[in-house]
């Protein structure tokens, strides 16, 4: 039998970073390989589900919807759907992270001579790629339903950028909850269940001005709403007449909210990851 030894641990900072990047790529490829091995789940989550929901809200319910301040409901709906898809990312990240931790895969990684942050960084890279794919599919659905950006490619890209920033923030909520509650699978189910109401308690589907004042206030301050409004503005879609402070500052809030979430949940996630050894 041949004896294979681990290459010596590099001493220089540059080669250490090289190891960390290569480890992150290996983990990201592994997470992507999961989707290749389970095409059914991927098609259901990123393809069938968005199409179904666009059909349901755009066509089944859409006829009865009017957008306060005027405009086409499907134009109003599409950016909301994009934002909603970012919310579903929390559950996707959470499930994957907690499954790995519960099954002991995370511990196997932690016992290897690999760069420790790569386990989370690889997951983050893979999930962001997955969300980009989901956005692309949903954009395709939008085009098929007659939606399109009205204010040019640059602003449309900026809108997509804001959506992905929100996804990146939600990613850390998912990582944190996954590492915190991996021994309680009921928490994973609970989070996946409340994603929908959390989305409804914002403005993806209906304008906040149609809600009772107290409920509207909560919906307005839902981070999701700021991103949806900012995306609507950048795409040139109706935002549903609203003159509140937070809506007028949607673009700023669409950056501020995610940064705040990242500032809270990124350190918490790292802390949790390190706590795995306590």
């Amino acid at each position, binding site marked *: 039998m041949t004896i294979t030894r681990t290459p010596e*641990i590099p001493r220089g900072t540059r080669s250490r970073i090289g190891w960390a990047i290569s480890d992150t790529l290996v983990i990201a490829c592994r997470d992507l390989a999961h989707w290749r091995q389970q095409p059914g789940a991927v098609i259901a989550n990123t393809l069938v589900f968005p199409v179904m929901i666009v059909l349901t809200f755009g066509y089944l319910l859409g006829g009865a919807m009017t957008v306060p301040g005027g405009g086409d409901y499907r134009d109003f709906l599409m950016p909301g759907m994009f934002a909603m898809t970012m919310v579903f990312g929390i559950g996707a990240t959470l499930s994957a992270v907690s499954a790995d931790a519960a099954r002991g895969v995370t*511990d*196997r990684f*932690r*016992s290897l001579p690999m760069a420790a942050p790569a386990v989370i960084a690889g997951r983050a890279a893979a999930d962001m790629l997955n969300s980009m794919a989901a956005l692309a599919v949903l954009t395709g659905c939008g085009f098929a339903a007659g939606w399109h950006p009205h204010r040019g490619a640059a602003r449309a890209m900026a809108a997509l950028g804001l959506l992905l920033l929100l996804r990146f923030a939600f990613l850390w909520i998912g990582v944190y909850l996954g590492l915190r509650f991996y021994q309680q699978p009921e928490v994973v189910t609970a989070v996946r269940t409340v994603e929908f109401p959390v989305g409804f308690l914002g403005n993806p589907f209906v304008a906040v001005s149609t809600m009772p004042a107290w409920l509207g206030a909560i919906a307005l301050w839902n981070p999701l709403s700021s991103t949806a409004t900012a995306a609507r503005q950048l795409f040139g879609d109706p935002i549903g007449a609203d003159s509140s402070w937070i809506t007028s500052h949607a673009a700023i809030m669409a950056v501020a909210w995610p940064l705040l979430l990242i500032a809270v949940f990124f350190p918490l996630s790292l802390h949790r990851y390190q706590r795995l050894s306590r």
Partner: protein
Amino acid sequence: MDTPAIACEGLGKRFGGKTALDHLDLSVPPGTVHGLLGPNGAGKTTVVRVLATLLHPDSGQARVAGFDVARQSAQVRARIGLAGQNAAVDEILSGRQNLVMFGRLCHLPAGAARRRAGELLSQFGLSEAEDKPVRQYSGGMRRRLDLAASFIVAPCVLFLDEPTAGLDPRGRNEVWQMIRALAVGGTTVLLTTQYLEEADRLADAITVIAAGRVIAEGTPDALKTLAGGDRIDITVREASDLAAAARLLRTRLGADVRVNREDRELSIPVTDRLAALTRIIGALHEQDITAEDITVRRPTLDDAFLHLTGFPDSTVPATEAATP
């Protein structure tokens, strides 16, 4: 003398209010198979987690392959393999994908990782299933893949945490063969187990722990001797006679009689086998207690274990007594 492959001094660890490790010392010479034996909750897994750098001890220190697990964890990780309860393989990927991935994470170049995966798959008898997802593997195949994954880069020290728990006898035999082969190759193996037979067959030396402390240490033979010399086992015909027979033999022989109610069996340590046998038969006959079977035998590791952990009047075999 060589530096020990594993050296723990005064390891302590508490989880909440519960003590998992209580000043535990352990020393394993390089190139040996060491059994860590104890009932569930004794702290076996905690020891492995500390040594594999997965868990920080509250007190004490541990060195693996000469490196401190807390301060030189990267060096330790480059020299260990871990398999069993604590480390899993990816269920969705195929066996080959798993091994290539773990090889890449050990920083083998892509080509070398693929070659090594191929070697291990054939060495561990998994070539036929190499492209199937692991969730379709049998329990034995999964364990073998798990072992293979811990052996991608020949580890100096291999930790096997209950590697055969839940396997059928055939799967257990397969894993035992693999462990023996690894030991021949010069790897130091720390094996935790609840199965005394497993420790007896594989280990050069055994440490018995309970409640986070070492309660005995030595070769399997030395531990058996601790349990006393030969034993005589008596099966009585009527379960109602069991208690009376135990009392009788305790008084007559002045020995510690172990009672196994389930099998209507008494087990007695004896020094002079024939004299004891004669007296036992005489005493039982005198009291009209019918024995169905009487056997004289050498002590097993089970006896040592029961003796050391002090399970009195155990009514279950030791392998199960270890599971609460």
